[in-house]
């Protein structure tokens, strides 16, 4: 009974936060609700006995991504007047499509036969994960590092202001 209640509470927080993210008029509020949704998802990971992923979720999504998003909102806030419409004309179709998709996914989940097994979580999950990362998944691991480097360089290049010469040339 207790896990079910906990699950219900977490789902409520997560989904409520998510809905607030996509419907709130103020983008900044959306961003803070996004943090709330992320916290909910992190709790889901705790419920799934994956504390490492939960902590990483907090570290990356809240500590980095959410703060970056909030920062970006502040940098572009001049155009976000209160009376601006936050959703476009096709929102009703989008809502219908999303609902339909949810229906389809739910139907699939309900009808599928998952090969669930009852097994305990490994004792040293982080050690195991490190070993697998450096053996079975070493190539994706390296590619991920290259991807991060590329993203770092790319975002600096895209985001930096033009230097003085090219600006005066305009």
């Amino acid at each position: 009974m207790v896990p079910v209640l906990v699950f219900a509470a977490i789902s409520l927080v997560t989904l409520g936060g998510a809905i607030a993210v996509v419907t709130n008029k103020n983008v900044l509020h959306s961003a803070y609700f996004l943090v709330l949704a992320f916290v909910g998802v992190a709790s889901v990971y705790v419920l799934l006995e994956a504390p490492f992923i939960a902590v990483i979720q907090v570290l990356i999504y809240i500590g980095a991504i959410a703060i970056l998003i909030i920062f970006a909102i502040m940098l572009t806030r001049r155009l976000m007047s209160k009376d601006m419409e936050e959703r476009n004309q096709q929102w009703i179709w989008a809502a219908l499509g999303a609902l339909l998709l949810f229906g389809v996914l739910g139907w699939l989940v309900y009808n599928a036969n998952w090969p669930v097994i009852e097994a305990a979580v490994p004792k040293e999950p982080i050690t195991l994960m490190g070993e697998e990362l450096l053996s079975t998944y070493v190539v994706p691991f390296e590619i991920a590092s290259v991807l991060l480097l590329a993203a770092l360089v790319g975002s600096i290049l895209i985001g930096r202001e033009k230097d003085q010469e090219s600006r005066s040339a305009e």
Partner: protein
Amino acid sequence: MSIPLSWFLVLAAALFSIGLYGVLSRRNAIGILMGIELMLNAVNINLVAFWRYIDPIKMTGQIFALFVFTVAAAEVAVGLALVIAIYRNRDTVVVEEIDLLKE
């Protein structure tokens, strides 16, 4: 373990649909990015749930979740840089107004 797997999957599906709605309906480019983040989170819930319920001995699910984190971080960094660059050039972050290709 009293919660069945399908509950997590339904939760993830709901989160995914909400994120999709956000992507399709927000006018603000940063709002769209937030929708994408929600969708990626939904995928991660699925990955970790499958790991826990179907193959908890190997860490494949968690490792894939880690890779999704990596991709999400890269995506946000580049995406926000693009948004800011567009804002500098065109003074707007409303995606409907960014339709140069049509004109």
